[in-house]
């Protein structure tokens, strides 16, 4: 058990830290394409400089994403060797495809985008931004395909040695779970990028500097923010949730804190799950809403944890429950804030409304928390399975790597990542302080 726990923590810690960077870059890549498109269409220097400023923020995130991403691919082998051996015949496919189709593309185009502004025509420079965006979104797709197969295994045969082998390439890539999760996840990345762009813009406006850029960033941040904050709930979150309910009833029951099977199950908004008594303490709940959200009728039966064998229940129920509720609660706030801001923007009052600007500024960490909590929901909900229904987590970690060696390198990563986090903060703070090149000055 100790070994298993340490290998799980090893992967969980390194992937959680890693995903702080790509969730911004994937969304920001899209926003940079918008800025570059405006630059190309209007021919105004303003848009180009705005894109260049965000390119600098992007570059820092890119490097941190790359260096923290390399360990992820290695850890399948180093920490989860038995899983890697048995599942390589399936998920080796999307992982190798990510390397071949996306990493080359994003690194090549980013090199041109960052270093080549003076060496290529504006059109090619715009194309390089598009290349970075496409490369990133392909990358996300292959990772989601990998995770989706662990959540909802499709298109495989079992081998005599217990291994798995893909038997339909397209069925693997078009796993319905993957498509739903991909839409939800990528929208989440756009939420993060919109909030960060909006927050930087709000900071400039509140601080009364770079105000022309501040208005651009707030505007783009809020427009992208309001669209993505709606899409993250409906349809992507709604569809994904219904699919989870259909295929992982134990996960939904644990996420919602539904201990007993109910007809007309209520949706718990707030409350603490009590595993000993098997109920929610101090609940605020809406009657019948859970049944309605999942099945579209108020009296539908929703399976509770009582119908799941104890050994097949997600073992960390409170963490899963809280992660899910934090994600959903923050998602609600995103919609409120962005709809309100969009309304003020439409009425032409946003740039001077101190309350709204402060709210936009202070809300930038929240999508990071929501994205992290969302992934925790997905992965904790899958437990105790490594491959849902087929291979338990306890069967997958590297037997040859002792708990103490695992702990040693986990602590090593924690120390190193603490340092990286500090450096990252300093670097980004510095870029935001420098800001975009002022408009009245000629570019050097």
């Amino acid at each position: 058990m100790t070994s298993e726990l340490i290998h799980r923590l090893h992967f969980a810690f390194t992937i959680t830290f890693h995903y702080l960077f790509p969730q911004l870059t994937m969304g920001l890549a899209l926003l940079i394409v918008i800025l570059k498109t405006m630059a190309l269409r209007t021919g105004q220097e303003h848009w180009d400089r705005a894109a260049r400023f965000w390119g600098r923020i992007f570059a820092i995130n890119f490097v941190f994403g790359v260096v923290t991403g390399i360990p992820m691919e290695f850890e399948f082998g180093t920490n989860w060797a038995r899983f890697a051996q048995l599942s390589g015949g399936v998920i080796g496919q999307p992982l190798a495809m990510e390397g071949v189709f996306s990493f080359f593309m994003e690194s090549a185009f980013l090199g041109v985008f960052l270093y080549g502004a003076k060496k290529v025509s504006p059109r090619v420079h715009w194309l390089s931004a598009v290349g970075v965006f496409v490369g990133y979104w392909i990358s996300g797709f292959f990772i989601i395909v990998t995770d989706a197969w662990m959540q909802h295994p499709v298109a495989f045969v079992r081998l005599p040695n217990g291994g798995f082998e893909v038997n339909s390439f397209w069925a693997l890539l078009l796993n319905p779970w993957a498509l739903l999760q991909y839409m939800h996840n990528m929208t989440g990345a756009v939420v993060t990028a919109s909030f960060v762009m909006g927050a930087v813009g709000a900071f400039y406006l509140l601080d009364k500097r770079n105000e022309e850029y501040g208005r651009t960033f707030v505007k783009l941040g809020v427009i992208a923010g309001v669209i993505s904050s709606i899409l993250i709930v409906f349809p992507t979150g709604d569809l994904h949730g219904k699919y989870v309910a259909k295929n992982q009833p134990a996960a939904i029951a644990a996420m919602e804190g539904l201990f007993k099977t109910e007809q007309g199950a209520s949706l718990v908004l707030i409350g603490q799950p009590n595993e000993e008594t098997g109920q929610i303490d101090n609940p605020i709940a809406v009657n019948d809403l859970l049944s309605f959200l999942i099945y579209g009728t108020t009296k539908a039966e929703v399976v509770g944890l009582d119908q799941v064998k104890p050994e097949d229940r997600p073992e960390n129920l409170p963490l899963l429950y809280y992660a899910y509720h934090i994600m959903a609660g923050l998602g609600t706030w995103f919609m409120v804030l962005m709809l309100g801001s969009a309304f003020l923007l439409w009425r032409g009052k946003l740039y001077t409304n101190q309350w709204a600007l402060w709210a936009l500024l202070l809300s930038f960490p929240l999508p990071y928390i929501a994205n992290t909590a969302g992934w925790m929901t997905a992965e904790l909900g899958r437990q105790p399975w490594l491959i849902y229904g087929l291979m338990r987590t306890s069967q997958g970690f590297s037997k040859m790597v002792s708990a103490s060696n695992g702990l040693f390198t986990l602590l090593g990563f924690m120390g190193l990542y603490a340092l990286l986090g500090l450096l990252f903060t300093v670097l980004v703070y510095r870029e935001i302080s420098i800001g975009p090149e002022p408009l009245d000055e000629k570019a050097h």
Partner: protein
Amino acid sequence: MMGFIWFWLVAVMIVGYVVLDGFDLGVGILHLFLARTEQEKRTTLSSIGPVWDGNEVWLLAAGGTLYFAFPLLYASAFSGFYLPLMIVLWLLILRGISLELRNHVEVGVWRKLLDALFGLASSLLAIFFGAALANVMRGVPLNADGYFFLPLWTTWTPGTHPGVLDWYTVIGGVVALLALSLHGALWLTIKASGELEARARKLVPLLWVAVVLITGISLLATIVVRPASVNNYFNYPVTFAIPAGVTLSLAALWFFNRKGAPVKAFLASCLYLFFMLAGACWSVYPTLLPATTGAQYDITLARALSGDYPLHVGLVWFGIGMALAIGYQVFVYSRFLGKAEVDSH
């Protein structure tokens, strides 16, 4: 047949990684010694700035391809070499960050620290990669399930229970350190100008002599440690073309550097790395990871190979994907031809 194809495809990915990331590792190693002024340091770094992470992608793509084609080998080797791989990961992180950070800080002291970190991480990575290859050539103590776990060192002697480091694998590390330094020096003769270029050019013959010597030593050491490594060559004498290629590329390197043709000398160095790696692969083929505990435990091609269906489908997308990838890289390199420029970035 699938086994043969994928063995060499993975080998090509590894060669691609070594040839490409090899020169920026080499530049990292030399950065400390060759570049004196701030201007020169910036030139050195900007000679690899636009391309280094694209080069590093080859490592990831090679790892992914290995996982895809030979899951057992990937699982066994990555968990067995757990400690050195984690160290490699930390070094890759430190190297990437110090390179990126360097141009963001103005304080001289921090720059010196980051330069040192960048140089040190690059040197250690070269040594570790060389030692890793030597570990594969020497073999590891595999058990019946095909797994092992290596301590960093035991008695420093190759035997049934060696460590990651022993005298043989250290030689492998030195080969990589010197060969990549030479590779990096040649890259600088192309990209740098003025005094820096002259210094790099003067260093090439010295490194060349060292590389020739260590190449010979490593060859003899390999035959001593693993006599079976010459079998394939005698069974298929035509493959003596590989060691001949090593020799010829070294000769060509010397010749072109003397003639002042830096691009050709660099290409000769690429060929040298290619032939060295091809020679190493051929000497173990069709074994992927030999066992020091007895040949019956060897991880062979047939044992580690993934299924027929994924490998067939893989050939299609791998062909398309790598054609695109090479296209992108050619495009990037063609944008940054000629001497490195230092701009205000």
